[in-house]
């Protein structure tokens, strides 16, 4: 008897074949096409396209705004996930369903709505702008919509882990003499850290690629509020496909490195499991 046939579920080869095929069609082939297109340029041309002062300003904005938004989402997401799992309250189901709304709503709509809310005459803006909080057409606005589009990730990754976690473990810690901070630090955190990091990564990656909502709430001024995906679109409008692909590949490579780094961090935080 061969090894594979002793697996609990049959169809390992079929499953793996399907996975590879599916991944190729959905991810690898388009990715390769993008890289192939960028390969139209020589290395010198490629560098001249991706490393201009304006592009650098756009990368900086894209990555910092995405990072800040992802961090905010971790804090908000943990609170929401905690409340949804640990407390019973009226309308909990509805709140739970609301968490997914950012996934379903076209992000351009979110951008438009946020912009009109926070603008000087908007519902919120009329109170906030006099206080010095300008949500529309500023970098703050970009972060606001990125928080919106990435919000469900942390909640949805942390929630199932929290549900698995018994409140009794914490009680046990308390009985054994741990104070609240120690319980949090030594009991809750180690379990929640891996899913939180996953959620963070997803929210962060999502924010880097986000276009639809940002263009509506950002003033899109070069060096000031122009995100990297806008650079790609403006190259496409000139029919400069090679150049557009070059920026895309660069952005992708950079994001990939970041994701790999976060993945290592996640492994490390998971080290107790093995």
């Amino acid at each position, binding site marked *: 008897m061969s090894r594979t046939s002793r697996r609990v579920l049959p169809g390992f080869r079929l499953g793996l074949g399907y996975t590879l095929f599916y991944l190729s069609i959905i991810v690898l082939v388009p990715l390769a096409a993008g890289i192939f297109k960028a390969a139209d340029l020589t290395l010198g041309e490629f560098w001249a396209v991706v490393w201009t002062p304006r592009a650098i300003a756009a990368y900086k904005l894209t990555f910092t705004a995405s990072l800040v938004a992802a961090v905010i989402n971790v804090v908000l997401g943990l609170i929401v996930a905690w409340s949804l799992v640990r407390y019973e309250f009226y309308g909990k189901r509805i709140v739970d369903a609301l968490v997914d709304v950012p996934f379903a709503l076209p992000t351009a709509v979110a951008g438009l709505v946020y912009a*009109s809310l926070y603008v000087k005459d908007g519902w919120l803006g009329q109170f906030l702008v006099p206080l010095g909080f300008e949500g*529309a057409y500023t970098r703050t606005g970009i972060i606001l919509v990125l928080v919106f589009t990435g919000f469900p990730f942390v909640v949805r990754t942390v929630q199932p882990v929290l549900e698995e976690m018994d409140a009794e473990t914490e009680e046990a810690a308390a009985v054994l003499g741990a104070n609240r901070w120690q319980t949090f630090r030594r009991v809750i955190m180690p379990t929640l850290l891996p899913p939180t990091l996953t959620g963070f990564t997803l929210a962060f990656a999502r924010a880097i690629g986000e276009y639809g909502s940002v*263009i509506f709430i950002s003033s899109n*001024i070069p*060096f000031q509020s122009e995100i990297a995906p806008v650079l790609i679109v403006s*190259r496409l*409008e000139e029919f400069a496909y090679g150049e557009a692909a070059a920026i895309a590949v660069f952005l992708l490579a950079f994001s990939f490195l970041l994701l790999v780094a976060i993945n290592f961090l996640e492994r490390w935080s998971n080290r107790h499991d093995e």
Partner: protein
Amino acid sequence: MLRKLSVLAVAIYIVAAAVWVLSAGVVRDGGKLELLNVACDPTRELWRDINALFENRFQRETGIPISITQSHGGSGSQAGSVINGLKADVVTLALWTDTDAIRKAGIIDAGWEDRFPNRSLPFTSTIVFVVRKGNPKQIKDWNDLTNNGVSVITPNPKTSGNGKWSFLAMWGYQISRGATDAEALQYVTQVIRRVPILDAAARGATMTFAHKKIGDVHLTWENEAYLEVKESNGDLEIVYPRTSVLAEPHVAVVDRIVRKRGTKAAADAYMNFLYTEEAQEVIAHHYYRPTNEAVLKRNANRFPKIELFSVKTIGTSWDEIQKRFFAEGAIFDSIYTAKGVAK
């Protein structure tokens, strides 16, 4: 039970969706002629009316039922879609360069500009100002745009036809009054740096100005200006500068597609229909300037006198204009420097 049913429902839904998606690529229409008009963003209302008229007329005259589908989007991205394989029978884009980019890709035959009357221009337009009620900043002409405290709304010239025409109108205004290139650059730089939000396309800029109430003056297509003012219920008004640019949105039949689909005769008829008095009246009604003199005269009250200069005052060819002003690192990009904006 309920659970099984819902699993079944989901399965049916997925299968149906898959069939629907696949069939879109396979199923042929049943004997009815269909044309696809790939058009630029602000012309939705115009084409809706024109198409209804043409469909009736074509069927009356030839006995063949026809239906015209429209697609709208930024002029440049629409051209990009056709280059990438969107099966457009005709294109009606905002800029000569966009149509010609399709020609360069070998999808439209050379000499397309001379295929229809009046250099393939059934109508023209221009760029005018929209200001707040009572014109509080007293913006009457192009030089008022650089007055202290005036903020200007216009979309990004790199991504929008409206933006390009606005930019060329400003530049051309300076050149046509005898300014040097250096003076024109200084003027345009001053105005562009006062644009607080660079929207990607025409409708976005309209919303920024009309709904979000940002900016003192909106530089936009003449027809879009009328639409915007009409919908503002008296909050906005149009100001005609003394001169502006003659905007020329060309039309063209997409030769390679109509040959392949056998729709050449219908597409030609559709384009030629635009020059009939009937269609020209509709065009005028939507505040595009008809190229038929008689119709233009009849609608003179809709189009205030304004001196229109051709893009020829700015550059000898569109390719040159594109390269000089809007290409990567060209004049428009040079206006934005790290120092210039961060103040």
